């Protein structure tokens, strides 16, 4: 009896979800008619999205949302989400797009569609401008700082040549301090961390040397919403061409867009 009730609840929920998704299938028209684009953005993940000193959301994702709203010629309505509820907001029809530093993976692709990449998100090796390193083999004889146990530590340990010295630190702050004080020549970390270093200190600006693992961000669109997806891709392509996206990358990540994006 109890179990049957739960099953009924699930069935109802599934039905409701289905209805909502279908209701938003032709959302490009709906957006243009209502004149507002509702975008789910993070508010707890700088530099992609955080609350600024003026209490307004700001960041890479927020600027990107503005770019798309402008491209559609509509007003922008931001909806603050967390990383756990960003996809449900979209599928439940509470948001038209999710621009929330979303990476692509097979599980997510079953539920929503992805635009072309709009933001770089990767782990890599970073270092000063004058040091010539373009691949893992170039690390021979160099010292690289990394945060112990982080994904980039595990990846770097596999690809670094034997003569490279990997110095492992307790946390990101110690890794950063080791780099800024010149105790290591290079660091392996995420591009967001590198951006944070460049923002706080210009003592030893970090240049991207090479990528270890690439997982760029995509705009999430409801499954099967082809017209909206095409429009979003069009705006992204235009922004890449005009340099508007590069400007956003410079502002929030303090680095130009990588060539492959």
């Amino acid at each position, binding site marked *: 009896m109890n179990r049957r009730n739960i099953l009924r609840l699930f069935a109802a929920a599934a039905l409701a979800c289905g209805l909502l998704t279908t209701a938003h299938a032709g959302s490009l028209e709906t957006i243009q008619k209502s004149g507002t684009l509702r975008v789910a953005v993070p508010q707890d993940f700088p530099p992609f999205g955080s609350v600024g000193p003026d209490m307004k959301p700001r960041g890479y994702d927020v600027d990107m949302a503005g770019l798309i709203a402008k491209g559609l010629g509509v007003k922008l309505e931001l909806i603050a989400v967390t990383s756990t509820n960003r996809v449900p907001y979209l599928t439940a029809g509470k948001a038209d797009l999710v621009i929330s530093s979303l990476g692509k993976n097979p599980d997510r692709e079953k539920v929503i569609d992805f635009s072309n990449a709009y933001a770089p998100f990767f782990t890599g090796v970073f270092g000063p401008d004058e040091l010539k390193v373009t691949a893992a083999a170039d690390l021979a004889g160099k010292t690289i*700082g990394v945060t*112990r*146990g982080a994904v980039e*530590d*595990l990846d770097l340990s596999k690809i670094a040549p034997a003569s490279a010295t990997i*110095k*492992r*630190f*307790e946390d990101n702050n*110690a890794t950063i*301090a*080791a780099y800024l*004080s*010149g*105790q290591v020549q290079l660091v392996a970390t995420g591009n967001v961390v590198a951006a944070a270093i460049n923002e706080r200190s210009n003592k030893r600006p970090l240049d991207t040397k090479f990528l270890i693992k690439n997982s760029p961000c995509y705009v999430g669109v409801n499954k099967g919403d082809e017209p909206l997806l095409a429009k979003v891709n069009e705006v992204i392509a235009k922004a890449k061409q005009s340099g508007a996206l590069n400007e956003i990358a410079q502002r929030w990540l303090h680095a130009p867009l990588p060539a492959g994006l």
Partner: protein
Amino acid sequence: MAYQFDFAAVWAYHEMLAQGAMRTLALTAVGAGIGVAVGTLGAVVRAWRLAPFDRVFGVYVELIRNTPFIVQLFFIFFGLPSLGVHMSEWQAAVLAMAVNLGAYSTEIIRAGIVATPRGQIEAAASLALSRFEIFRHVVLRPALQRVWPALVSQIVIVMLGSSVCSQISAEELTFAANFIQSRNFRAFETYVVVAVLYLLLALLVRQLLLWIGRRFVVGRPAT
């Protein structure tokens, strides 16, 4: 749902643990050697009030004994490069340990020196011993004899404190433990093994130092 212990996951890294233990020992040996030498110098200077150095040592002792070891270490490793002083993680670790032990042993050895009865020094002088001979045989040796157990304890404390050096990427025993734990996620097994290793190291160092004390410092008991 009982936790399945898996010490084999730690044994897979036994070479790293052995290397870490050796490095901890080496770090302690060098750090303690320099530290006790600094401490002896400081104790003499302070006990006999050799101006102006007694003031210098006074400030040094207070500064080091009233700040945490990890702060001293971070200052040397992360702070000093701003002044152009670059040190490897090992140099920084040895320096921090020596500086730290130097301050504590200054006070420990000084206690032994001030406890020397005046009459003993006067007696030595009346036997026409030179100042250096008096210092060496009548003051320092009995002083070290008196404080040797305290000094040994302090050295063991410094050795255990060297675990902090893992924070500046010095690959000693605690670094090995943290590294292994970050690869096999066997925190319980890893830290149990490392705790036992530290215990054994501490017992070993204590016995060794007590033997050295009996053999070289205290000397054979007069018969």
